[in-house]
């Protein structure tokens, strides 16, 4: 789900960086220092999720769970995800400094959007909650892949078909993300509902 360095052109890189900066700024503004530890730990947990490989077909994929973070943190997910990506960049060197803007936008943007739209469903019945979980996982991943394909296409029209291929190949992953986010939401609602801002 990362675009590596050296693929995108300047306008795309700059556009992504500007939007990510704006999103992060909004997220930081809504985050007071009392919550900084919670966001830090969730950011670290998001990083850990990216180390979890689940089997899909004959291979395996690593989790993203941006939608989940969006549901929990709302706008706060933006800086949290950017920080986690930065950590990945320095630990593993994929998707480093220059593409951080675009990657941040691709992953955090949809996560926050899905979180903000779907969070109210969490308070509903069990079915609604499960639907919210599934959609948060599926849609945020779908939008991320779409944005990624868009960034490739904007950089070079010749990437059109490769980008389409990338999008299609992510479909099973989106489904898995949806299922896992749904189960995690169900888990949290039962074990510690206040994480989802629900009453005990």
């Amino acid at each position, binding site marked *: 789900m990362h675009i590596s360095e*050296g693929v995108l*052109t300047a306008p795309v890189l700059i556009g992504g960086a500007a939007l990510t900066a704006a999103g992060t700024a909004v997220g930081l503004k809504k985050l007071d220092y009392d919550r900084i530890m919670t966001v830090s730990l969730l950011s670290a947990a998001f990083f850990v999720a990216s180390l979890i490989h689940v089997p899909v077909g004959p291979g395996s994929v690593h989790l993203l769970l941006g939608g989940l973070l969006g549901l929990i943190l709302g706008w706060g997910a933006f*800086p949290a995800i950017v920080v986690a990506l930065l950590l990945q960049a320095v630990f593993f060197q994929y998707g480093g400094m220059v593409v951080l803007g675009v990657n941040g936008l691709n992953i955090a943007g949809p996560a926050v959007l899905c979180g903000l739209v779907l969070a109210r469903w969490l308070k509903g019945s069990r079915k609604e909650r499960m639907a919210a979980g599934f959609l948060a996982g599926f849609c945020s991943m779908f939008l991320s892949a779409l944005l990624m394909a868009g960034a490739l296409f904007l950089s070079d029209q010749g990437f059109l078909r490769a980008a389409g291929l990338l999008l299609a190949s992510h479909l099973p992953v989106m489904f898995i993300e949806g299922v896992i986010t749904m189960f995690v939401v169900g888990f949290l609602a039962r074990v510690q509902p206040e994480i989802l801002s629900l009453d005990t």
Partner: protein
Amino acid sequence: MIEEPFAEGNTLFHRRDTRVKLIAAAAITLVLALTSSFLVASTGCILTGMLLALSRPTPSLLLRRIGSVNLFTLFLWLTLPLTYGGDKIVSFFFLDISLDGLRTAALITLKTNGILFCFLALLATSTVANLGHGLEKLGMPRKLAFLLLFSYRQLFVIHQEYQRLQRAARLRGFAPSNSLHTYRTYSYLFGMTLVKSWNRAERVHQAMILRGFNGRLIPLNQPQPCREDYLFLIGMLLISLLLAGIPFF
């Protein structure tokens, strides 16, 4: 386990001030990321490769890193020649191979690896802790910098917590497969990790309050760059200028 294997060592690169390294890395990667010239990309790749050699990375680890980053370029090599289109097309048996596609894949491979080498030489030789402080000094918003440093500190604890739970699952006969049971189990393992993180956050926050924290984070003095650092910076900036200037000769 998450580690910072390249940060251990005592070469020229390890001793440099992080801020200097961050600026240098930014300059070189920017030039490489934006170029569309083969000459710039290949010269850059060679130069950063030399820098990397000077930082003496462990060869086996290095190869693994390069391999994992090049998975994406491999994808491009496999798809672009077939999908890129453009003018120059050669037919090879029944396949239409786009030369433009090949060219693009090659260029991206050079750029990606050049930037990777630069990263490994300049940034991976610092710990994340130092990079975080460096970024803050260079104007990263303070809240974001602390977010980075705090999550860095807790990362290891959380990862270990997850691994212990995963081990417990394995001991109870859990073998991952393509099944709902598998996905549910992973969700529970991660969900429990989240719950623990959430509760730990509260305790750590209490620890901060107990030490007089009242909503303002005050940084501790960090060492200042010395003369060698400035010389190093000038050298690195010259390299990036040289690279940027190649097309104009």
